[in-house]
């Protein structure tokens, strides 16, 4: 293949064993680099994230309730918007600090798909589903369930990544 580089070294084609060893070395580098990408969020941001996902179903439920529930709808909307804005600002700060600490790009596609795919599908359902169940049944217990379940998922994933990072860097 033409590389455009100035006179690259020419290597004889590797033997099967040499090619296997080279692939194994690339796999080893990939594993150690994945450990860097799986570095967990700092505890302060994991706590922020947990608080946000616990608050979201309650505020969303208040916003979409048929009637006024605890607070005027405008107050729920303002609370939801302000907490979301604060969360996004803190996420930007945490992401910047995470990148500086790890020295690698923040990306989620290197994390195990068995964790990220259920999270991507399940978390929106967990955040918004209880509000609709509350609207349909009038039972505020749905919102409490949503808050507790979302917080538990957040803590669970944080601990899972702490474990994954520890295992891959051990």
């Amino acid at each position, binding site marked *: 293949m033409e590389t455009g580089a100035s006179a690259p070294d020419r290597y004889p084609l590797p033997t*099967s064993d040499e*090619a296997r060893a080279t692939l194994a070395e*690339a796999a080893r580098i990939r594993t150690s680099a994945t450990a860097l990408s799986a570095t967990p969020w700092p505890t302060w941001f994991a706590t922020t994230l947990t608080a946000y996902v616990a608050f979201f179903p309650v505020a969303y439920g208040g916003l979409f309730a048929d009637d006024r529930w605890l607070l005027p709808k405008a107050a729920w909307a303002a609370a939801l918007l302000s907490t979301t804005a604060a969360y996004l600002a803190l996420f930007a700060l945490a992401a910047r600090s995470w990148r500086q600490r790890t020295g690698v790009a923040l990306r989620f596609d290197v994390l195990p798909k068995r964790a990220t795919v259920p999270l991507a599908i399940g978390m929106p359902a967990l955040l918004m589903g209880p509000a609709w169940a509350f609207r349909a049944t009038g039972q505020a217990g749905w919102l409490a369930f949503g808050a507790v379940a979302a917080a538990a998922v957040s803590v669970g994933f944080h601990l899972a990544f702490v474990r994954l990072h520890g295992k891959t860097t051990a």
Partner: protein
Amino acid sequence: MSTGPTDPMAGFDHLIHAPNRLRVCALLDTTGEAEFAVLQKQLGLSPSALSKHAGALIEAGYVEQRKAVRDTRQRVWLRLTPQGNKAYHGHLAALRAIVGQ
């Protein structure tokens, strides 16, 4: 030996095959972008050795660099270009073809 466009051996890249350059590509492919110091630490290379290999990859258009200031010091971040990504994966495919996978 066939060298048609679908032949994986056509992807064998002599520039990438150098052991340390392949390791640089493997790390950048996984992380997306990495700071020079992280590459050095992860790969166990001296600054001059890494500069040499990174320079060859940059010259080939396989890697691009970005400079950012942190703690008043300038840091260099490296990432694979789309061309570099294609070349690296083509090279891995060639190695797998040699192994017979």
